[in-house]
Every structure is written in C-alpha cells, then in structure tokens.
C-alpha cells in the first residue's frame, strides 16, 4: 500500500486540517516511510488474540446515571465567555447554508 497526494488530501479533510499544497509532498513521503515499517505486522498470523483478550476483560464500570455537582474549581460563569440560562454562548460560526457547503 502506498500513500498518494490524494490520500493525504482526503485524510486531511477528514481530520479538518488545512494542509498547504506545498507541504503535501513532504507528508506523502513521511507517511509512506512510516507505514513501510508497519508492513512487518503482516508477518504475524491472525490468532484471534484480541477478541479473546476482549472477551476475558471485565466490562467498564459505569456510574449511576444521576446528575451530581460539577467538580469545577470555579463557577462556569467565571470562565465561560458568555452564559445565558445556564448555557455557554460561543460566537456564531456559520449559517446552516455555510455548513452545508463546506461539508
């Protein structure tokens, strides 16, 4: 498997990273070099070890689904940029149309 400039553009879009075109070649080269070392894993036969380990592991402990006090060191009003009716307000980012165009 070899990483192409289009692959890097694609994952950069998925990761919401604006990579300048001038830096693409460098990332393509580096990712190919790193992933080349990962090919060694294909030598290990599939064993089902991960599934067996998962099955043996106890499930994650869950706490009660109850609202408790927030363990904050100062009230939200002190660090929130703006608060209304208990909700954080952030600057308006985009209209629905903008978000639809960029997605």
């Amino acid at each position, binding site marked *: 498997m070899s990483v192409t400039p289009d692959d890097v553009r694609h994952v950069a879009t998925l990761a*919401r*990273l604006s990579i300048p075109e001038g830096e693409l070649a460098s*990332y393509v080269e580096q990712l190919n070099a790193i992933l080349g070392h990962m090919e060694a*894993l294909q030598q290990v036969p599939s064993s089902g070890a991960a599934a067996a380990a998962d099955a043996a592991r106890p499930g994650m402990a869950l706490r009660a689904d109850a609202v408790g006090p927030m*363990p904050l060191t100062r009230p939200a009003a002190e660090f929130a940029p703006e608060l209304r009716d208990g909700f954080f307000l952030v600057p308006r980012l985009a209209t629905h149309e903008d978000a639809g165009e960029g997605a």
Partner: protein
Amino acid sequence: MSRSLLDLTAAQLGAAVREGRTPAGELLTASLDRLAETHAGNDGLNAIVHQVGADDSAMQPLAMGPLAGVPVAIKDNLATRTLPTTCGSRILDGWVSPYEATAVRKLREAGAIVIGKTNMDEFAMGSSTEHSAFGPSRNPHDRRRAPGGSSGGSAAAVAAGIAPIALGSETGGSVRQPAAFCGIVGVKPTYGRVSRYGLVAFASSLDCVAPFGRTVDDAALATEIISGHDPLDATSAAHTVPAMRVGPGPLAGLVVGVPKEYFPDSLMPEVRAICDRALEALRAQGATIREVSLPHTPYAIPVYYIIAPAEASANLARFDGVRYGMRIEVDGVQAMYGATRAAGFGAEVTRRILLGTYVLSAGYYDAYYRKAQEVRALIARDFTDVFASGVHVLFTPTTPTPAFALGAISDPYEMYLSDIYTVTANLAGIPGISLPIGRVHGLPVGGQVLAPAFDEPTMFRAAYALEEALGAEAHR
C-alpha cells in the same frame, strides 16, 4: 539559597517541615532561586514554562501530609487551577482549566506546593521535548543534549534540583525514557492505578499519570500518594493501593527475567556492560537471574505507532477553535476548523493526526488498526506467559543509548525507535520503573524493572535493592 536543602529527598523535606525544623517558605524560595539560576542565559534548561506566583493560593498545600511544603513540578498536560494548561501547543495558548487533575489534588492534599508547569513535546507526542511551542528543554547533564521526552521538562526540573518530585505522563515511555536520560527515577504505574482525570488525553488506552523522583523511595512515595480509585475516571481501577515504600532488602526467592529481545547484538556495548553489572548486583542480593523470551517484542513499535496516533486523531478532534484556545477567523465553519487546527498544531502532531486518520479510514482499518490490536494482544500475552512461568520481574535497559544531541534526530521513525524498550509496558498495561545504573561518557544510563499488573510492590522491591547495591556506581 541552601543547595544542601534541595539535595534532601522529598520524604526528608516533608518531615523537616512537619516537625518545624524547616519553614515551608524557605523551601519554596530555594526552589524558585534554583529555577531562576538554571533557566538563565541562552542555554537555560527551559524546563518550567509556567511559573507560580508567590500569592497563588490555588497551588498551595491543602493539608500537612508526607509532602508538607515540598515543591513539585507538574507537566503542562495536567489540569491545574490557576496556572495555564497548554500541552506545549499554540492551540491551547493561555488556556486555564476550570478543574484540577486528581493526581495534582492528591499531591496538594499530601502537602505539596506546585511551583510550575513543565515543558513537554506538544500533546506528549515526542521523545525529546524538542517539539514544543515553548522551544526545546535541555538536559542538565549536558545542555547540548535532549532531556528525553515527552515529559522532558519534568525530568530536567527534578535532575536540576528545582523540585524533588514532578509529575509527567506516559503513553509509550514518556517518563521512563527522560528519567534514564536525566539520571533520575521514573515510574509508569499499572494502567488504571492512577486516575487520568484532568490529564489531557493523547491515547486513552495507553495514557498514565506517572511520577519522577531523584530516589526510588521518593518515586515510590509519589506513586503511592497519587494512586487509587477515582469515580471521575471510568478506567480507574478499584484495586486497593498497597504500600509501595517497601525499602531495600535481600532478594532471596526473587526471579528476575532477562528478555533476550531487549539485548540484541546491536545494543551499544557500554550499555550492555552497565546492564550486566546491574544484573550481577541483583544476583548478589539473592535474586535468581533467568533468560526469557518475549517473542512479539519486534512488533511493538509498529503496533504502538498505529494505535497511539489512531486514538490521538480522535482525542484531538476536540481542539476545533470553538471550545478551547485559539481560533483563526475565516469564512465558513469547515474552513475555520481547518485553518485553526493547521495553525495551532505543530508538525509532529499534524503528522500523527494524519497517520491516525489514515489507519482508521475506510479500506485501511483492517490492514492497520485491527491488525495492530491483534498483535498488541499477543505482546500482552508474552508478558502474562513469562510472569506465569515463575518470573517475578523483568530487567532491561530503559533506552538503547544515552541522551542524544538536540537536533540530532530528524527522521520521525528514528525518533520513534528511542521508545523501543518502553512501549511494550504501555501496550500490555503493566508497571515499569527506570532508575540510574551507570554512565557512558558522563551521560546517565537507565535500567528498567517491569512487573505484573498491579504488582508495584515487587517492582519497587527490586528497584530499592538495585539502587542500594549499586550505590554511587549508579552515577558514574
């Protein structure tokens, strides 16, 4: 400043303050004087990047415990109340957490004073503390060299005598490796032993809060204090915390395994000789030395550098210009995300996010991520099998070489290889400790003791005995 004061251990300093022999204010002054002295000039250590103010009550002790009045330094990815928590990244420039990490609170409840936040590779991604928005930290033993990483600032602060104890974090060796490079002790506790609440997430299945000390006893004391179940971290273990300050003693009945994969023919001969001397010291204390094999060790670096970036790519999605830190104002929400993240993250973080997103993406998930999970389970099984065969602890070098020069390693994969002996413990979730065992050309070399999950007492038993047996030899 009394240099001899800072040469005492944390346990001794805490006792002196509790018994009224030393005022806590005198300790703090000595620590801040030492900080100023070591950070002056063009080759200053650059270990502390956010320094506490004299009137910052939020960093003061909450009680008078075993660390009464003891200055401690905290890695910049652990949440503190008034000092910034910036992970060495531009994207979190100036950000102050609205809550405090459990491990930091526990240190303050034990009496510690937080003197500052320490430099680190951005978001803990690195092995040299060169990849920080604050510039590189320097190794106190040779300022042209790296202190290791990613917790290099904490390691340098302890090695330079600024604080006897510091907190770092481990994902693949980020405390044991800098401890080895700086000639101090670093502990990676069992996964789940210490709460991760307030530790900025890098790779959640691997991350641990991990302490440094100048002696095994201080490292054991710090580990004991920060351990314990925390309902605020769903991965925190419910296990009772055992006594970890077991002290030096004979090792009769202890079987020490020596994994042959950690001593390849290519290992630097001087490092091998120092390890052989350490093994001889363990034998002289009564331990039985046995060669063992951990056959999947050669796959550890590829496995780690698939799993850790994959988890990081998801964890770092939260830094989007909306909720934390900086934002680049451009038209359109998608463009804002991309521009903010591109400007806020450094090259290594960007590289790992791209790598992690790639190995999780459609068409590559099975070949990379699922395969890595399979092999990770085999690496963990190697340890389970060897400990089940009657081996109590394992001994290895911590790193293949002593500290490298700043700027010496530019190839990303070559840098990744400096974690080759430490990542396995993170992948398997077991505890490990690095302690000084000698020097090569004046530079410290670390030896590593690994133990079964939740058996820190046996790990410390071997480390205390080795430290005592080597004595001054460990530092020359």
